């Protein structure tokens, strides 16, 4: 009896999703599928690669268009665009040393991107990445400072757990407020960014302030032997490993598990999910918690591997860039890895642009803005060309 009702529920979900998909980005054009089904013919579907190609070709095309627009922008300001591109490429990927620097910046971006990429599958646009990162870093530091004589490994585990849980609770609260109180999640996450940053300022200026840090208010430093050590001879730290693992887990969770299926169902059609008996509230909160753990962990890594203490440098804009990564990668966690690496390279090249071309560091921000706008425009082009429609015989 129970199993049967479960089966019906699943069938209902499939039914609802099919309805929902047929009016958004359908894989089978109705005009083709419906007459074939009516005539009782067996449908032979060809290998499905066109949809996948579209999902790669459109963002790639968008990046090319943005490069052209950015080149025009450089040319309009009297710089040779090709020389600028060459500098970016050299500073980001030109040498092993440069690439290490790129990867160091890519690590927090990957983790922050997940904070937007996971909830958006629920239909929630959450931009609280910056706040979760800052809070994760702050809480991890507080715990780290409380364990001065513990072994490095146990300090790392405690800090990572605290950071991740702090970020997770912060974002889960946003999900809970959205579901149970109807508070707009975007505005809510924005306000909570400001609150988290204020908490950090308050903490590093009073509660845990190191009196020795005059110009740049900071917490007491984490002892050197308890810092996260770089990997081997490189400058790459554990953040990259965490980022890769988190993106992998997020992809598996979203695509291959019932949890991910429920999340995607809620995002596709929340009414259908409720009718099918999915407990929307707990799943929303849980997904938001998992999403928030990632920037929280990024904050911990920034403290334990890069900064050495909690200070205002935590609030360096990785969170906001993470939003861009999530949209560029079309919310695909594996795509986030690639885009984070590209964007990390771009961020790493800010100094080179200033040195070689006298371009202000805001140039990178302009480029990011252009890419963002073009990518959003490309969203409206899905399904526009027949070439990318899956064919059936």
């Amino acid at each position, binding site marked *: 009896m129970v199993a049967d009702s479960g089966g019906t529920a699943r069938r209902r979900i499939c039914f609802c999703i099919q309805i929902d998909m047929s009016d958004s980005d359908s894989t089978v054009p109705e005009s083709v599928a419906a007459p074939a089904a009516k005539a009782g013919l067996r449908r032979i579907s060809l290998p499905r690669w066109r949809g996948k190609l579209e999902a790669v070709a459109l963002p790639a095309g968008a990046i090319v268009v943005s490069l052209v627009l950015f080149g025009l922008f450089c040319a309009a300001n009297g710089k040779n665009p090709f020389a600028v591109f060459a500098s970016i490429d050299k500073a980001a990927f030109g040498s092993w040393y440069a690439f290490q620097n790129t990867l160091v910046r890519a690590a927090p971006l990957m983790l922050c991107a997940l904070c937007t990429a996971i909830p958006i599958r629920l239909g929630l646009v959450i931009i609280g990445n910056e706040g979760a990162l800052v809070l994760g870093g702050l809480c991890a530091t507080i715990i780290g400072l409380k364990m001065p004589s513990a072994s490095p490994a146990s300090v790392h585990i405690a800090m990572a757990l605290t950071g991740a849980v702090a970020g997770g609770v912060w974002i889960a609260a946003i999900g809970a407020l959205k579901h149970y109180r109807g508070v707009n999640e975007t505005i809510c996450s924005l306000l909570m960014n400001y609150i988290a940053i204020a908490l950090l300022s308050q903490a590093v200026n009073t509660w845990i302030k190191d009196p020795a840090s005059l110009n740049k208010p900071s917490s007491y430093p984490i002892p050197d032997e308890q810092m996260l050590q770089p990997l081997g001879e490189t400058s790459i730290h554990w953040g990259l490993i965490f980022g890769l693992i988190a993106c992998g887990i997020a992809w598996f969770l979203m695509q291959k598990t019932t949890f991910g299926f429920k999340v995607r169902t809620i995002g596709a059609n929340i009414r259908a999910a409720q009718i099918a008996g999915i407990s929307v509230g707990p799943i929303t909160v849980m997904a938001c918690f998992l999403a928030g753990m990632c920037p929280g962990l990024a904050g911990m890594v920034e403290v334990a591997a890069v900064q050495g203490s909690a200070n205002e440098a935590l609030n360096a804009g990785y969170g906001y860039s993470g*939003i861009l990564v999530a*949209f560029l990668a079309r919310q695909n966690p594996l795509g986030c890895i690639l885009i984070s690496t590209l964007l990390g390279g771009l961020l790493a090249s800010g100094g080179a642009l200033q040195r070689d071309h006298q371009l202000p560091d805001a140039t990178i921000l*302009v480029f990011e*803005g252009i890419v963002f706008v073009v990518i959003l*425009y490309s*969203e409206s082009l899905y399904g526009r060309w027949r070439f990318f429609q899956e064919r059936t015989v």
Partner: protein
Amino acid sequence: MNQPTDQLGWLGVPLAILAGAVGGGTPFLFVSLGECLTEKSGKINLGLEGVLITGAMTAYAASYKSGSPWFGVLVAGAAGMLLGFIHAWLAQKPKVNDIAVGIGMISFGSGLAFFFGKAFIQPLAPQLPSFDLGGWSANPALKAALKICPLFFLGVGLAFAMDWFFKSTRWGMFVRAVGDKPDAARAMGISVTSVRTLSIVFGSFLGGIGGAYLSLFYPGSWTERVSGGQGFMAVALVIFSRWNPVQCLWASLFFGGAQALGPALQAVGVSGYYYLFNASPYAFTLAVMIATCSSKRSLAGQPGALGSGA
């Protein structure tokens, strides 16, 4: 503006809050009126933060180059309209999320402003004039508090004018119809796209003027930290004031005053929670949103099509 309050002791706190309400509230007023108009037409413009920063930069630059601060205000409005036009065009494309467009426009607008604004961080641009309503008083603190920018009165007038516009004019009804029931508006023969485009562009014009106020009056200089997130807050303010322009005025004054609370308390020696006090407007907005929102019904006064993608 808060420095002279030292001599007043505790009396300085309400005075600083009052001064902050008018002085710091004016940019809130302009961006929230702009956002109110935009949201009444059924779209959200989160990108007003980018518009505000661009407005601040262009106003300062134009005022410096031309010597006329009022010309700077106009240029800021025009720059805002330009960004607004991009937002309007992009946000109305199918399958494009207007909130995401706003985030994109923030990085685009602020990127352009920082890029071209580097050259204008040092020089001093002519500032907007002020009405000295405190001439009768000998107290310098009171005098400083009563130096009020003409833009403030313009904003107050605009709030009431906009209220009248929505309630009593044909065009105001068009905007409300498009925001509430786009399909019905379309059936009436109203072009939803044009109404929304005009609303967003004019809303961004107001956002640009808010930016001009920041760089040409209070705090009165152009730096990369000129905006304290007033553009972000616009969206929260409009929810706070239930999509009513006159209530936007009261909410802006309230927020301006709340922003002045931290520095005012620090001036009288209460500095223990200075940084947390600075976040009080955000915490308060959040508290109000949690208290008044409900998952069962939409808020009173909320345009029907808002956030639905229609």
